[in-house]
């Protein structure tokens, strides 16, 4: 019923969109997997990062990809400070309080953006925003946009870096120890509060990277984060909490499902596929498709 090139195009489109979902979900899975909290402020933090990239480009003419070494540390510091100074202090170790605090923070961030940037939807102009490359065999060539391809590569690099960090460094070992057994880790001399804040910082640093890759082909407004939150949670659950490889594969899978759902069911109903998968995974395989049974 559909031309092969349309299907291939939907597949590639889904994979590249999915890579961005994966980047956003990487940060979330780190926070969720270690701190075991639902970070309601994740979408708003992404929105802040997008405005950061936007402001750098508009004010000082810094290209989004050049902004990477600025945005990633900046978001890391924001995350570290937020966890250490606000979330940790306000939560008193209770889940429902963490939830309320992150919710309050997201309300503050969203409305600060509204205050400073108004509710207009903004985009940036780069020489490569609309450029495309042809991919595929001679008969069924498909055009893919360059920024999306870069985002795809970026997602792979970031997840590889995170896996190396988690498996090969002392910090990674400490993070894994805290995720498994908080009290035991504390008794071994690990500064649990510091590890928590590092996780939050790293989680937001991923968003900083995601924002740099996302903005050339996307837009920003104060509500832009909301659309990504539930998708990111879906990816996290699908891939198994705290699993980076799972988040990457889950993100790609969700991107493809959304793309094909949109092709076969129409744009708005296509998204239902994501949530149906989400509910089914939660009910039937809550450890995620790639997670180990605990």
């Amino acid at each position, binding site marked *: 019923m559909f031309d092969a090139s349309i299907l291939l195009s939907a597949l590639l489109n889904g994979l590249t969109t999915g890579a961005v979902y994966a980047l956003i979900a990487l940060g979330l899975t780190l926070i969720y997997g270690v701190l*075991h*909290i*639902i970070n309601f402020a994740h979408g708003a933090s992404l929105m802040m990062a997008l405005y950061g990239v936007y402001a750098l480009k508009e004010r000082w003419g810094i290209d989004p990809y050049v902004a990477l070494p600025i945005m990633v540390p900046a978001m890391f510091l924001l995350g570290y400070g937020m966890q250490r100074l*606000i979330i940790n*202090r*306000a*939560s*008193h170790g*209770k*889940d*429902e*309080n963490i*939830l*309320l*605090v992150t*919710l*309050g*923070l*997201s*309300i*503050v961030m*969203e*409305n*600060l*953006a*509204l*205050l400073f940037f*108004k*509710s207009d939807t903004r985009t940036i102009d780069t020489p490569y925003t609309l450029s495309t490359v042809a991919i595929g065999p001679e008969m069924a060539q498909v055009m893919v946009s360059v920024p999306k391809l870069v985002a795809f590569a970026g997602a792979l690099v970031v997840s590889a870096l995170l896996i190396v960090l988690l498996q090969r460094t002392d910090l990674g070992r400490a993070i894994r120890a805290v995720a498994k057994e908080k009290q035991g880790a504390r008794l071994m001399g690990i500064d649990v509060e510091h590890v928590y804040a590092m996780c939050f910082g790293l989680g937001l640093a991923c968003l900083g990277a995601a924002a740099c890759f996302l903005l050339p082909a996307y837009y920003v407004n*104060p509500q832009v984060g*909301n659309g990504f939150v*539930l998708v990111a*949670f*879906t990816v996290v*659950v699908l891939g198994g909490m705290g699993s980076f490889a799972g988040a990457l594969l889950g993100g790609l899978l969700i991107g493809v499902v959304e793309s094909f759902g949109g092709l076969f069911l*129409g744009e*708005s*109903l296509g*998204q*239902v596929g994501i*949530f*149906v998968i*989400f*509910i089914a995974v*939660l*009910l*039937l395989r*809550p450890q995620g498709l790639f997670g180990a049974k605990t």
Partner: protein
Amino acid sequence: MTKLLKDMVSIGLFVWTVAFIPVLTQSGVTLNFVMMALFACLMAQAWNVLGGFGGQFSFGHALFFGTGAYFQAIAQISWGWNPWVALPAAMLAAALVGAWVGALSFRYGLKGSYFALVTLAFAEVFRIVSLSVPFTGAGVGLMLPLNESWTNMQFGSRAGFVWLILGLVTLALCVTAYLRNSRFGAYLQAVRDNEDAARAIGVNPFYVKTWATVLSGALMGSAGAFYVQVFQYIDPGIGFGSHTSVEALVGAIVGGMGTLWGPVLGALALHVLADLTRNLFGQMPGINMVIYGAVLVVIVMFLPRGIAGLYPHLPKSWRRYD
């Protein structure tokens, strides 16, 4: 006095006092404020039944809100029902959705954040479906035809709506009083505090939690139906959007979960705060919500057990009501 009698007396006093407000003033602004505050109380109290007493954190109470709202609208527009008949039916519809979601989630043993996420996802599925199918009016939404009369539940003044929502809040308070004083309520709180221990002494957690979802859903559904009657309009974003879920849970948690008056106090305090900041800083979009969010964080920071958590700190002579 028994605890139940005390609860009922305090509910009676509250209702008696509030019921007189529309008699004392005709001011539309005041009555509108009272109505919207009671509306927030109803949602917080509905969430409290499942979240506060059952310990099951729902992020998707908009699911029940939207179900009640759409049922109320569709029953009148498409089937020609009288709204007074449609209201209990809308609550029943929301209760059925609660039974379905609750049974499905608890059958598969979802707890904590997993339950929160699954309710969030169900609300989102309902939102997208209502955005796409014709009988909910898709993205355009549904408009209730204007036909002012008591029999049509469209009162000429705000006073009628204040009494209507007061009636629904009273129902929610009575459900809460029932949970505080009944065997079922004791089971529910036992499951919340320690599910394994509750199971060991013969409580069926699946049954108890599912029924709590049904009760909570029915109350939230009544809030949705009320919304449609007041504003005569519903669309997928209003019905199933996450801000409704958030408003319900924030009111209950800020007020104090698992208490009779906590959600009422919390919803009222947040409503006053939102109103105040809107009036003070209305000309600068965003700043009022920045303050609202910051105050929310501060409340959580300094009142970790909600406003009702202050109660044991009151001077002893004030604490008649224990």
